[in-house]
């Protein structure tokens, strides 16, 4: 009996090790809210830019979104461990934020932000790249679909009228930021995880 109990205890220890290692690897950040935040931010930037063609519309709104993201993410940092994959994904989006801020600031101040089609194509292509890289690392089909939508938008916005290109970009933002972000928030709240973790 004692040998059996000891053997069972050892098996439990082995089980404990496997479960705890899996727990650590499985636990991920909840980033659905970031997608929604940035979707709203893009809409705000578009509205401001359309209202008075200000060169500061995009740099300021992106900076505000970056600050909010950093502050909220930092306050939630203790709730989740740092993993190599999480750090890799985070770096993709940090690089995206820096690129967008510098690019739009320079284009705005230099007065070269005149071609709406080109501007939207660049935004869509950059977002497609970031979503695509993230989706490929995480092997997450839904995010890959978002990346594909951004790539389609990047191509489509090069053609047609100004109004048509605006509609394309507004639709892409709605699908790939708002809808995708809300899906992420709901999935996290229900404790469900898709094929991969939710990362911005």
């Amino acid at each position, binding site marked *: 009996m004692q040998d059996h109990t000891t*053997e069972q205890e050892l098996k439990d220890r082995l089980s404990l090790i496997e479960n705890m290692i899996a727990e650590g690897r499985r636990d991920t950040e909840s980033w659905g809210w970031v997608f929604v935040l940035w979707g709203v931010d893009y809409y705000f930037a578009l509205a401001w830019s359309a209202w008075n063609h200000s060169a500061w519309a995009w740099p300021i709104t992106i900076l505000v979104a970056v600050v909010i993201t950093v502050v909220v993410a930092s306050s939630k940092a*203790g709730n989740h461990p740092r*993993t190599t994959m999480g750090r890799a994904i985070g770096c993709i989006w940090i690089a995206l934020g820096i690129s967008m801020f510098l690019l739009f600031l320079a284009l705005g101040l230099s007065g070269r932000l005149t071609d709406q089609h080109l501007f939207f194509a660049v935004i869509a292509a950059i977002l497609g790249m970031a979503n695509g890289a993230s989706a490929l690392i995480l092997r997450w089909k839904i995010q890959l679909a978002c990346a594909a939508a951004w790539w389609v938008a990047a191509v489509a916005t090069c053609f047609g009228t100004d109004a048509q290109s605006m509609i394309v970009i507004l639709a892409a933002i709605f699908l790939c930021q708002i809808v995708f972000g809300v899906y992420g928030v709901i999935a996290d709240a229900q404790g469900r995880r898709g094929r991969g973790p939710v990362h911005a």
Partner: protein
Amino acid sequence: MRRGAEGAVRSMPELPELNPVVHGRLRLALLSLLAGVEQAEFTWLRAKTEATDGNLGAQLLKLEEAGYVAVEKKFVLRKPQTLYRITEAGRQALTEYVQALKQLLGPAIEP
């Protein structure tokens, strides 16, 4: 020692000893959790193990004293944060513990 059919003395294979620092259930859980991540905060470890602050702190201190865990304390947005990560020695100790477990269990865990 056992005697075989011909009376020859056969010695029992030496059973591995389990590292007592790693063997503690909560300490084992902590090392295993940390093995799967780069680093983790005290509150996350507490949530995963459902241990009390005092007990968790005591076990983490034992692991730190054994050199299996490293601690980093810092402030993030003026809030104190205590971060833990497993060391190479801790990873090695966990690996050896698992190997010892498997050796002790032997045929009991083979498919």
